[in-house]
């Protein structure tokens, strides 16, 4: 029987009356053999299930992983040197580059509607067909090979939905879950985190932007002007961490077009704002009021901690998103949990 630890003894003591405490990085618990891999399945269908997830070890550690990735790139530019790539990182980069190259081989079809170019389905079908072969080189031992069946669904759901031709923060969360599973298997280690963010995740973002624009992916579950962004959330967390303690760039600097033009290639947050300004028409304050309001926050540190809290509340605690989240042996579902204070 698994007993999950309660939330409060692991989190920062700084708790307000209504707001969650500051979310802390956590080390990923290593999965040790003998492994019992399984094809992951959906488990969440109600707010009670959401609570169960967030009070479980899986929920705490997944969020702790995201916070750890954020922490690993504090004050770090995209081009800052990183240690030589591990084998896993090399394979992940190669995978993302290959997926990107397919876009040139599968051009969009003539299509009258605003969203949803059907050529995306061909791109996605190719992903489904070739992904198993991509995973094999990452799984470096006989013991790890069966992990393929558990990892594949997370990877396949990281790039959007082929039937609806859409993409949203749920798919992005699946990619994070995929990386989390690799970390649980010790295929990604903490020393890899900076490169994982500044090389692998940045390549993932570039791939997604190309897919979004080439195939007109519909924003899945976008809250329109009442959400942060039509497609993404993680680059705002990771990107704000990059800018913490920057000597002269403040949150309000996103309104400076010169800064966006010259530093988007180094800072994910700026690249996100630049992309939004490129694809949307009209005044920034009108089409992206959330980002505009957040630009008034005094420091990047506050933006970063706010983004983590907002990610937990607006993505990981929403049934329409989390009902698609998959649970297996690496991200474990607990049928019940006992909370107790140590």
């Amino acid at each position, binding site marked *: 029987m698994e007993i999950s630890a309660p939330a409060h003894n692991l989190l920062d003591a700084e708790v307000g009356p*209504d*707001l969650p405490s500051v979310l802390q990085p956590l080390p990923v618990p290593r999965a040790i053999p003998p492994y019992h891999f399984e094809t992951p399945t959906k488990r969440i269908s109600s707010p009670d299930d959401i609570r169960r997830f967030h009070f479980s070890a899986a929920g705490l550690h997944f969020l702790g992983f995201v916070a750890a990735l954020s922490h690993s790139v504090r004050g770090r530019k995209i081009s800052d040197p990183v240690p030589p790539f591990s084998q896993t990182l090399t394979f992940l980069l190669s995978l993302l580059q290959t997926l990107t190259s397919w876009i040139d081989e599968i051009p969009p079809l003539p299509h*009258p509607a*605003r969203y949803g170019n059907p050529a995306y389905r061909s791109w996605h079908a190719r992903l489904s067909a070739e992904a198993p072969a991509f995973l094999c080189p990452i799984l470096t031992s006989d013991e790890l090979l069966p992990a393929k069946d558990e990892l594949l669904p997370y990877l396949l759901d990281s790039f959007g939905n082929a039937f609806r031709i859409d993409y949203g923060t749920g798919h992005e969360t699946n990619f994070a879950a995929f990386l989390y599973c690799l970390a649980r298997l010790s295929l990604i280690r903490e020393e890899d985190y900076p490169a994982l963010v500044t090389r692998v995740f940045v390549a993932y973002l570039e791939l997604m932007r190309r897919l979004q624009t080439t195939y007109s992916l519909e924003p899945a*579950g*976008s*809250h*329109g*002007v*009442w*959400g942060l962004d039509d497609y993404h959330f993680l680059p705002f967390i990771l990107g704000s961490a990059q800018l913490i303690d920057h000597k002269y760039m403040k949150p309000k600097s996103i309104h400076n077009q010169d800064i966006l033009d010259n530093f988007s290639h180094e800072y994910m947050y700026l690249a996100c704002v630049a992309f939004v300004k490129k*694809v*949307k*028409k*009209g*005044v920034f*304050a*009108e*089409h992206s*009021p*959330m980002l*505009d*309001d*957040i630009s*008034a*926050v005094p420091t990047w540190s*506050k*933006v970063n*901690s*706010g*983004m983590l*809290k*907002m990610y937990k*509340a607006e993505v990981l605690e929403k049934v*329409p998103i989390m009902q698609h989240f998959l649970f297996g042996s690496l991200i474990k579902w607990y049928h019940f949990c006992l909370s107790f204070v140590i």
Partner: protein
Amino acid sequence: MEILVEESNVQRVDAPVTVRYPDRITLIRGNHESRQITQVYGFYDECLRKYGSVNVWRYCTDIFDFLSLSALIENKIFSVHGGLSPAITTLDQIRTIDRKQEVPHDGAMCDLLWSDPEDVVDGWADDITNKLVVELEKIRYGLSLVQPHLDSERCGNVAAILELDENLNKQFRVFDAAPHEARGVPSKKPAPDYFL
């Protein structure tokens, strides 16, 4: 609410409808006039952020339940937000629907609000339905003239109105967004509580 309760599922409308006759404006329900969809696409968040509670949202979605499902203009033009349904072959069938509920996930009421016109129409062979199909085809042809202008947000901010005169002649009016100078700057709100 009292006014909407009295309306039929197929609301009769006389042409022309203009703002000179404000008591003759008819609203019909669309697929976004629902509790589920307004929680996904932002109306719920907007109400919560603007008014501090969900009561306004709740009252609005309660009223949506009473909106009529369709309109019949001069007994000749059938107007609906979505499209047709395999479960419906006559207008009388629409009239028998109990509409005072959240938009269901399937069935006639759902289809009327959700289904999209297709290029190939097969199956529902029936005089009246064929007439509806023919009218839909004509309106779609008209829409195809405006379609390039309607790819809003990414290509521009435009709206369109189909205007009918006393003789049911159709004309599309396309509106661009008001220029920035006329719109005014939206007031800056404080960042959400997460960032305090």
